[in-house]
């Protein structure tokens, strides 16, 4: 279906995406302090552009689905490819724009130019996607760029006050866990899993909680990730759901986590679970897996646990000693800003743009990030390279990070 020229174009687009990310991170680190000085007006201008990209994404998604239906008549493979790549590329553009929003107007212009280039190359390479889609994408991106120079009047989508299920503990059957139910268990053909420990999993941005659906484990979302984790580790997996308000709202909250203190339901739930474990005598072990924004939520919760312990009469040193019973494994998230005490293990895909974007944003808030920052040994920082054709693919917990766990630790036998 696709020739060498097409894949060459796609390779070019991927390289351009990497260059764009490098520009964003480099530019962001240098200019983030300047961005604050430039003030809210500049940031608002950038966010207007982001809104336009979001609209472009939504429009493109609709049109791409239409395109996919057309393509289905030609070939099923072409339909799936076109839909997937176009939506992912549009979402990636939105993500890049948000990362830029915390940098500076100057960096934003550079990044948007790069995004435009990437999109041009991606769209040029996607020969099977109808021209209407590519033209619209370019048009909306051009609109976004034009808006950068206009007075600020737009905002991110408004964040709902109470997202459904936010902070809910998720267990077996992809339902709210009650004291008598288990977490998600490894799948075994004979129905007799061999359970090895318990993992608490905190999801990242834009993650669905398909509770009540016919087969929630088949749909992308927290439950599917929990099942894959259970299968990869033989552990019972309990979820703490970080509710999604959509990609743009989640990214806004993600930056809030870094900048201000996001007291979301997921932070409170995780904090209480961890405090309940380490405040016992003797302290109980607890393992937390955190992906993407789930890492920032975990940082908030850990700071709270430490405060709770000190308020309960533990000295700061004793509190950190108790927190050594916490094992935190993070994936595609912040590498800094982790409170001292717990044992940390980090997995970072070098092709994943999110950790770099978070690092750039954190540099704008040094007191919040580095005032209590654990010294994590290099041996516990796992870096690997798993590039994907689409730029956001390297961030996937299901398709990248869980596979990396298996690659590094091996696939244990979870069945009797």
């Amino acid at each position, binding site marked *: 279906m696709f020739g060498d020229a097409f894949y060459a174009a796609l390779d070019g687009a991927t390289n351009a995406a990497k260059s764009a990310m490098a520009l964003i991170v480099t530019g962001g680190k240098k200019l983030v302090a300047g961005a604050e000085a430039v003030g809210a007006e500049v940031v608002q201008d950038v966010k207007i552009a982001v809104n336009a990209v979001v609209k472009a994404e939504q429009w493109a998604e609709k049109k791409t689905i239409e395109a996919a239906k057309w393509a289905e008549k030609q070939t099923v493979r072409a339909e799936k490819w076109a839909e997937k790549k176009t939506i992912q590329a549009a979402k990636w553009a939105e993500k890049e724009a948000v990362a830029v929003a915390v940098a500076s107007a100057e960096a934003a212009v550079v990044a948007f130019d790069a995004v435009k280039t990437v999109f041009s190359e991606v769209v040029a390479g996607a020969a099977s996607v109808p021209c209407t889609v590519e033209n619209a994408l370019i048009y909306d991106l051009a609109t976004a760029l034009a808006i950068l120079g206009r007075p600020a009047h737009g905002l991110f989508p*408004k964040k709902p006050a109470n997202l459904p299920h936010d902070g809910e503990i998720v267990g077996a059957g992809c339902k709210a866990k009650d004291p008598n139910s288990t977490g998600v268990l490894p799948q075994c053909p004979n129905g007799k899993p061999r359970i090895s420990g318990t993992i608490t999993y905190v999801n990242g941005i834009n993650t669905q909680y398909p509770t009540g659906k016919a087969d929630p484990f088949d749909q992308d979302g927290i439950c599917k990730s929990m099942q894959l984790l259970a299968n990869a580790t033989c552990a019972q997996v309990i979820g703490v759901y970080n509710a999604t308000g959509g990609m743009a709202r989640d990214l806004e909250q993600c930056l809030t986590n870094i900048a201000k203190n996001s007291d979301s339901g997921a932070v*409170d739930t995780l904090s209480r679970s961890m405090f309940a474990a380490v405040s016992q005598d003797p302290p109980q072990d607890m393992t937390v897996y955190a992906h993407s924004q789930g890492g920032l939520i975990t940082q908030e919760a850990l700071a709270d646990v430490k405060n709770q312990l000190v308020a309960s009469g533990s000295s700061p040193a004793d509190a950190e000693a108790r927190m050594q019973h916490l094992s935190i494994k993070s994936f595609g998230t912040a590498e800094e800003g982790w409170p001292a005490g717990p044992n940390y293990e980090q997995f970072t895909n070098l092709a994943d743009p999110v950790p770099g974007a978070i690092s750039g944003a954190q540099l704008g808030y040094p007191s919040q990030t580095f005032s209590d920052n654990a010294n994590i040994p290099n041996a516990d920082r796992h870096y690997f390279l798993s590039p994907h054709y689409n730029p956001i693919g390297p961030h996937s917990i299901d398709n990248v990070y869980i596979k990396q766990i298996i690659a590094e630790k091996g696939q244990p036998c979870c069945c009797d």
Partner: protein
Amino acid sequence: MDSATAYKLVTDWARVEKEDTSGIEREANGDFYGKAAVLGFQFDNARQNLVVRGRIMIDADKLSKTQDMMQELHRIAREEPDRVVHAQFEIVRMPWDTGEQPTLYLRRDYKTSESESKLFDEWRKLREMAYLWHRTYFRQAIGPIVERRSKAK
């Protein structure tokens, strides 16, 4: 400050912080309360008083059971106001709190209306200071008290 003025301040605050006021509950008597852009707001119409709170620690009941910790926090607020951007410590359970126990907040009161830019600047500093107390300052302040207690035993 009357209810309409106070409510406008809070809605303007939410707007400039790129959030909405869906978390704010208004009552028929002019009172209102709720959260906007991380801070908590509570307006008492009878007293014409707007309270603004930044969260430090959830489940703070344990603090109210021991006098020495809260005494130290109150001393810091009284003698070193810059360390708390002229706010006060308060343990209270607000409607938006997720648990059964009260929460430790930094609190500022406003009875008279000031310019929005000045107020919003103060609120941003309150939000940042509450966060820093959450991340480190709380333990730095309370840690020595716990150490003294254990040595005295």
